[in-house]
């Protein structure tokens, strides 16, 4: 069981990496008026057949061969439903996959968003062969991190260079603090 929504996002987005996506879009929205926290993860990876799609919510289905259970999506879905939210997953072979999860913001059973900056940083820095478009919305404010922009500036310099990795972490923390006023979601 994950303890933070951020870890679910990290886990589910890793599936996009394995699906050979070239772009993964992650949008986290906090909407106090409608009392909702929602997460959209969309990739342009290999997608899934309707048969596979039916089985991903089943914990006893996995594509891996090292073990017999696949808990990523079931954990994520359970976390959303337990917090009065909704969950769906859509996929088309050759087009990509999209997951959406919402959580009741003030629901007592909603796990904290957690270290979302750390999760996005890990995804971006350790998966340099694909691009991420991350958007964080807090009511009417928002910011984005687009690795395509960063890459264009950096040319061949790796995100793993300590200075760049630190810049990405600072970018995420400062932009997020500016967007949500440093709120603990």
């Amino acid at each position, binding site marked *: 069981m994950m303890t933070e929504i951020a*870890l679910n996002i*990290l886990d589910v987005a890793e599936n996009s990496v394995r699906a050979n996506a070239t772009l993964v879009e992650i949008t986290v929205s906090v909407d106090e008026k409608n009392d909702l926290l929602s997460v959209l993860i969309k990739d342009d990876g290999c997608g899934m057949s309707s048969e596979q799609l039916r089985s991903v919510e089943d914990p006893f289905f996995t594509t891996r061969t090292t073990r017999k259970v696949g*808990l990523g999506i079931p954990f994520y879905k359970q976390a959303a439903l337990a917090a009065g939210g909704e969950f769906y997953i859509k996929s088309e072979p050759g087009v990509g996959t999209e997951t959406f999860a919402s959580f009741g913001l003030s629901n007592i059973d909603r796990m904290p968003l957690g270290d979302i900056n*750390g999760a996005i940083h890990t995804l971006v820095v*350790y998966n340099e062969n694909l691009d991420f478009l991350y958007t964080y919305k807090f009511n009417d404010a928002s910011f984005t991190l687009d690795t395509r922009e960063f890459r264009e*500036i950096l040319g061949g310099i790796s995100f793993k*260079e300590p200075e760049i990795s630190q810049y990405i972490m600072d*970018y995420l923390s400062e932009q997020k603090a500016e967007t949500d006023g440093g709120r603990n979601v």
Partner: protein
Amino acid sequence: MKSLEELKALRDKMQGSVTLRNESEASTRIVVGMATCGIASGARPVLTALSNAVAEKKIEDVAVTQTGCIGLCQYEPIVEVFQPGKEKVTYVKMTPEKALEVIDKHIIGGNVITEYTIGAIMKN
């Protein structure tokens, strides 16, 4: 707010001084399991601790990367160390603190911390 101008300044400062590192050429590979099992048991802070330590201590020739599940979920977070000419070392039930010890004693010092390896844990 961080601006992209700052990133451009960083780039200009680094260009020339940075020898573009090629990970496939790094002789030591430290690999962290980051599948559902790893993440749920705390692999992310372990990965961060390892890569920060490698950067801060300016250890050359070491690449920190991630992998999926190797089928030993009950022992996660798992860190594997691959070094040329040596047998793979599998550290289990890692924490950021233990990971730093691995950097100091094993990667820098050259001594495997046997008590954290899978062999030691399975004997108990």
